[in-house]
Each structure stands twice: as structure tokens, then as C-alpha cells.
């Protein structure tokens, strides 16, 4: 984990959450820019998981190894599934589906920051 990258994920996810609720509030499906933004969030999230995995491979040992690995894998599959689910029926609720997934990415990144403490 790199703290600056984690905060970037949190910020991007936060914007995605708000964006999703905004398009729902004005009764519109997510637009192209919004979908691209979600894709961008996914890319940064994947980069974060790869860097963390590399650090684990290099010998870093967090207190809860198994849980950390679970989070690093789980966090990258949320946005792609939500993307598919949101686009299969496009309406105001598509935005909320994306928002829910982004919120989960945000919460999981916060949790990862806590999990990322070396085992003594």
C-alpha cells in the first residue's frame, strides 16, 4: 500500500459516489464521462492492488495476511460487476448501482489502510 495512492482511490471513489447519486437525482442514466470515470477509478484500484501484492511478495507481512489478500482481490472485482449490472438496465438506478460499488471501494480502501500494519 502507498498512502498517497490509497487517498487518491478514496477521493476518486468519493467523486464516483456523489456523481452516481447526482444522475439518479436528476433522473438520468450514467453518461459516457461518468462511465469513463468509473473505469479510471477501476484502473487506479487495480494498480493499488498490484503494488500491494508486489510488496507482500517482497516480504511485507501485515497482521492479518489472509484478510488483506482477500481485500486486495475483492476490491478490484466490484466496479467491473457494477458496470455490467448498471448498463444491463439503464435508468436512474444505474447511477446508484455505480455509487454503491464505489462506496464499497472507498470503505475497503480505508480498511486496507488500517490492515496495512506490519506484524511484530
Amino acid at each position, binding site marked *: 500500500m502507498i498512502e498517497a495512492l490509497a487517498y487518491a482511490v478514496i477521493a476518486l471513489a468519493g467523486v464516483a459516489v456523489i456523481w452516481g447519486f447526482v444522475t439518479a437525482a436528476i433522473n438520468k442514466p450514467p453518461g459516457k464521462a461518468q462511465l469513463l470515470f468509473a473505469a479510471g477509478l477501476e484502473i487506479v484500484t487495480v494498480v493499488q492492488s498490484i503494488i500491494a501484492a508486489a510488496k507482500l511478495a517482497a516480504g511485507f507481512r501485515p497482521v492479518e495476511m*489472509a*484478510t488483506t489478500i*482477500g*481485500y486486495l482481490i*475483492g476490491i478490484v*472485482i*466490484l466496479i467491473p*460487476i*457494477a458496470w455490467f*449490472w*448498471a448498463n444491463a*438496465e439503464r*435508468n436512474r*438506478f*444505474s447511477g*446508484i*448501482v455505480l455509487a*454503491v*460499488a464505489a462506496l*464499497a471501494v472507498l470503505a475497503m480502501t480505508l480498511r486496507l489502510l488500517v490492515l496495512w500494519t506490519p506484524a511484530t
Partner: protein
Amino acid sequence: MTDGPTQPTDSTVRKTNSGAGRVLVAVYGIFALAATARASVQLLTKFEEAPLAYLLSALAALVYIVATITLARGTRASRRVALVAIIIELVGVISVGTLSVVDAEAFPRATVWSVYGIGYGFVPLVLPILGLAWLWHTRPDMP
């Protein structure tokens, strides 16, 4: 007899996987993932520590998986299974939540349902209520 919006009874199909139901399925899916991952880690790495709590953790995971799939399918048969799963979920979160408060010794480590899902912003407590409300809202018309 005309209170409320009138709906054509023959052509109206209110499916559990449409409209707001898609958000519900998304939230259930996230909890299916979270509970499954959590239960797997618990059962595989430290089962002896608290077998009862971790088996309940696995039950929670199973319930979320079944509810996610059945709500996402949205057929008449699947909504019956969803109803059973969500009732088990509601009973589970209330009983495990209460047990974890009253007898904390039996639940030394957190599960999804501990203290009514406090670790997940109490969403596990609200979710089955929303699920039941949604099943009621989308109930098929009686013949």
C-alpha cells in the same frame, strides 16, 4: 375502489431485478462477497477459536449468496427462495446481534452480524427489512 394508482393487472410485471431492485441486488452482492471472504478466512485460518461464530458467519455468507442470485433472477420461483433466505437473514442478524451483545464471550471475533452489523454501518440490519419490503412491493397480483 379507485384509491391509489390503478395498474393494469394483466400486463404489469413487477420483477425483483428491475428498477430500484437493481440497487438492492447490488448491495446484496457486495455483502455476499464480504461475508463469503470473511467466513472463508475465519474457517480456513482460525476455526478452533470460535466454531459457532464462524459457522454462523458461513451461514450468513450462504444466505447473502442465495438472496443475491434469487433477487437478481426475479422469477416467481426465485422470489419464493429469496423470501426464505431474507427471513433467515433477518432472524440471523437479530439473534446473532443480540447474542453478541448479551454473551460477548461466545463471539470473540466479529462476524458480519455481530452487534447487528455495526462493522458494516448496520446495513446488515436494514437490508433484510428492505428486502422484505421490496418483495412485498413487487408481489404478483393474486388471481
